[in-house]
């Protein structure tokens, strides 16, 4: 069977915060003055429309490319750049198909008034969804250029080729700017580009498939780039918002006068209380003065101690709907278990916080009843809806702009800070910049779900005959085993969570894969097989087997399993969102800590778009995964976090970064899948399995708590 992109296994996780808008309005957005000049707008289907630009510009959701009469070429997408490299790869995709040098292109991202709605930047969807439409629109524009030139020169189109952004023939040159000017009289040139203009084959790529320096790197290294928290508007104030002392606490009373006496704008609107002042220092001082007068009614809230048992007690097995419970069964699991050698085990993972280095931030500005907010969100159009609803505005009166932002990792799908900044700006009658403090970001952003797992399997020799897996609360990503098992029952049961939950790198796949891959190690032991051999014996997925073999080969798996007391190696694999990861890790356990001595990963995400960026994403996933495996765990008691700071919630640093190597398995024959999530899912189980090899202690919860033997 030919390899394919397994779209069927890429459904959104049930813990993914609602993705994309419910509606796709074709609103009149002419009231926003566009930065796009006169020229042609091109859709992925090859429909081309002339746009006069400026105040009359109106980019429709399907329009992907703008060819300016001034020679500018702008790629339009609603995706955001949070460090994952989307801007650079989208630029490469357009440059490849347009046959232009990448440095002449501009990529305009995530502005609800100027770019198409591409839903959220999540689920590793930019690569499989956005890159192809950008390529198709660019190929259509190239085709139109050739055809128009051929017509003008009375030649056959097949004789002409585009190079460096123009068709050239014996001294004549016809560029994209010429095309934009030539098409001006025609309002629409609908049928001039046939559907299915061929995209350049992977083996002929000259821009895609290469490592390109990050677009905007110069602005980053000089401090010139303005992140959301750096946006400055005329007469802008700085805000601060009152937070409850504990989860669920309700405000009974508060005096606003102490804040106003300090010169701040103070607003209370229901549960919302905030201040705005000329400096963030003054806003904080005013907030402190108010805060001292606040009276709260607190609510009981469970502690993180005993969280796994709490989740199971608060399971919601009958919860329905898209976010509800799910059960899938194939074969006859109970009969197969009854006839086999069985093993069972339970696992747990805690809440973790994304803690992007730039906390949530927004600048809001009102122009009468029109609102513009610059903010770092992965769901620009979703946040626009949130703002429109909060202020009862039409979506056409609400604009969200997402400057390239300081990290998200799935943690910035929401628009709380945008709504808060807009409420303060409304009260102040001036633009307001609001940036959450680190403590707010820890406590009031949402968390990667905590979860518990129960796994049971039946073995016959080296084969798994039955697999029975129940996951409490992690989400559904990677919940189905990728191993070839004839009888499988998989249950997902959401739980009543004490903390606010949402997306994360891989979301549910982090926990589901941790439990499964540690259990696979336990089963290998029960079967008396090497963990790698056992996995391969139970796989018929060629790509997963290939990454396992590649990681093991580079690592020297067969030679490095037994390394003496308190040192050992572990292996784990995973499949999610169209890509495949395997990791081998060698650890040394000293006292109560786990030192990772070296780590080798092997990754296959289809055709590689940008090897440098891919390596950076694998590095980021793996090292962030080391944090979740070894140190990261949100603890809470009395309704508040116990460790909501970088001092108490240790995240990976330079010193914990082990010698690492990533083997990239390029598959030019397979359409590319995203790479910013999947590599994280094999880190924790590989380390847990390595600790077992080193000490004989089976690690069934995270973060790993090992003791030297």
């Amino acid at each position, binding site marked *: 069977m030919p390899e394919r992109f397994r779209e069927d296994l890429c459904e959104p996780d049930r813990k993914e915060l609602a993705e994309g808008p419910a509606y796709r309005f074709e609103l009149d957005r002419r009231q926003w003055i566009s930065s796009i000049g006169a020229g042609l707008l091109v859709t992925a289907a090859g429909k081309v429309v002339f746009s006069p630009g400026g105040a009359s510009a109106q980019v429709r959701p399907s329009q992907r490319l703008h060819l300016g009469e001034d020679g500018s070429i702008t790629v339009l997408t609603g995706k955001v750049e949070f*460090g*994952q490299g989307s801007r650079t790869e989208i630029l490469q995709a357009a440059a490849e198909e347009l046959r232009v040098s990448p440095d002449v292109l501009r990529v305009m991202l995530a502005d609800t008034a100027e770019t198409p709605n591409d839903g959220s930047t999540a689920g590793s969807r930019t690569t499989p969804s956005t890159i192809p439409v950008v390529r198709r629109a660019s190929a259509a524009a190239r085709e139109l250029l050739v055809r128009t030139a051929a017509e003008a020169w009375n030649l056959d189109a097949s004789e002409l080729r585009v190079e460096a952004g123009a068709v050239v023939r014996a001294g004549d040159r016809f560029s994209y700017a010429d095309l934009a000017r030539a098409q001006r009289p025609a309002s629409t040139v609908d049928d001039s580009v046939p559907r299915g203009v061929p995209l350049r084959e992977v083996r002929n790529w000259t821009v895609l498939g290469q490592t390109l320096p990050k677009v905007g*790197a110069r602005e980053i*290294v000089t401090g010139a780039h303005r992140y959301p928290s750096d946006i400055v508007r005329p007469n802008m104030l700085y805000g601060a918002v009152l937070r409850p002392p504990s989860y669920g606490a309700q405000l009974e009373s508060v005096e606003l006068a102490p804040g106003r006496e300090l010169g701040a704008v103070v607003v209370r609107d229901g549960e919302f209380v905030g201040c705005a002042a000329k400096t963030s220092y003054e806003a904080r001082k005013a907030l402190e003065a108010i805060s001292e007068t606040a009276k709260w009614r607190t609510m009981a809230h469970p502690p993180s101690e005993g969280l796994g048992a709490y989740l199971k007690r608060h399971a919601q097995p009958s919860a329905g709907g898209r976010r509800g419970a799910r059960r899938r069964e194939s074969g006859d699991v109970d009969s197969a278990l009854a006839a086999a050698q069985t093993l069972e085990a339970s696992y747990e993972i805690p809440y973790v916080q994304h803690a992007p*280095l*730039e906390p949530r931030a927004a600048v809001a500005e009102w122009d009468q009843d029109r609102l513009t907010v610059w903010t770092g969100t992965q769901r620009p159009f979703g946040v626009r809806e949130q703002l429109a609803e909060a202020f009862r505005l039409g979506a056409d009166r609400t604009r969200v702009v997402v400057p390239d932002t300081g*990290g998200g990792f799935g943690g910035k799908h929401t628009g709380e800070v945008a709504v808060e900044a807009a409420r303060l700006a409304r009260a102040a009658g001036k633009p307001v910049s609001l940036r959450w403090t680190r403590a707010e970001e820890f406590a009031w952003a949402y968390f990667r779900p905590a979860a518990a797992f129960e796994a049971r399997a039946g073995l016959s020799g080296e084969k798994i005959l039955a697999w029975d897996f129940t996951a409490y609360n992690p989400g559904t990503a990677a919940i189905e085993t990728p191993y070839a098992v004839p009888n499988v029952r998989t249950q997902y049961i959401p739980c009543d969570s004490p903390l606010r939950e949402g997306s994360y790198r891989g979301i549910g796949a982090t926990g589901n894969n941790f439990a499964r891959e540690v259990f696979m190690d336990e089963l290998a032991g029960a079967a008396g097989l090497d963990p790698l051999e056992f996995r391969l014996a139970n796989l018929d997925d060629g790509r997963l087997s290939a990454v396992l073999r590649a990681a093991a080969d580079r690592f020297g798996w067969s030679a490095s399993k037994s390394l003496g007391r308190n040192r050992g190696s572990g292996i784990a694999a995973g499949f999610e969102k169209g890509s495949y990861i395997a990791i081998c890790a060698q650890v040394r356990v000293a006292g109560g800590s786990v030192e990772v001595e070296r780590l080798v990963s092997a990754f296959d995400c289809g055709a590689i778009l940008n090897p*440098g960026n891919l390596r950076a994403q694998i590095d980021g996933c793996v090292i*962030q995964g080391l*944090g979740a495996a070894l140190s990261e765990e949100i603890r809470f008691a009395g309704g508040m976090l116990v460790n909501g700071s970088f001092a108490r919630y240790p995240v990976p640093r330079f010193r914990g970064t082990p010698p690492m190597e990533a083997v990239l398995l390029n598959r030019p024959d397979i359409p590319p899948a995203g790479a910013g999530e999947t590599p994280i899912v094999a880190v924790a189980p590989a380390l847990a399995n390595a600790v077992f090899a080193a000490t004989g202690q089976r690690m069934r919860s995270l973060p790993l708590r090992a003791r030297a033997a």
Partner: protein
Amino acid sequence: MARFTVQVNGNQLAVESPPDRPLLDVLREDFDLTGTKYGCGEGQCRACTVLIDGQPTASCLTPISSVDGMSVTTIEGLASGDQLTALQQAFVEMDGAQCGYCTAGMIVEATALLQRNPKPSRSEIVDVMNPHLCRCCGYRNILASVELAARGWEANDA
């Protein structure tokens, strides 16, 4: 409120401010030098690092009164015109930034390191840089960037 004078990136700047206001806020809000970032407000992430009389310092923990009459260098003050420093150019070359929010602090810290010790070993670089957080976890490319600059790579070779 009191008046404080600071030489920032070579320019003599004055500000009326409460004495305990953090230098970070003054740089960002009064001088519009937003390249220096807030990450935690407690010196744990070092995104706010600036040079005070040449010493890398967390500006979030530095009251403005404590730098009165002193010299401050921020990320904006490193390049001369369009000419990046060798270290900045190395960060571009080695893909030393993912989201880039930590980059200013990293570059300012490493600039001071390379001035003190132009040929630091890897472990010396790690020791000096360790207080700096990169939540994208791009540590390997950051180290490679600093090492490239330390090898005497010249910006004008680009």
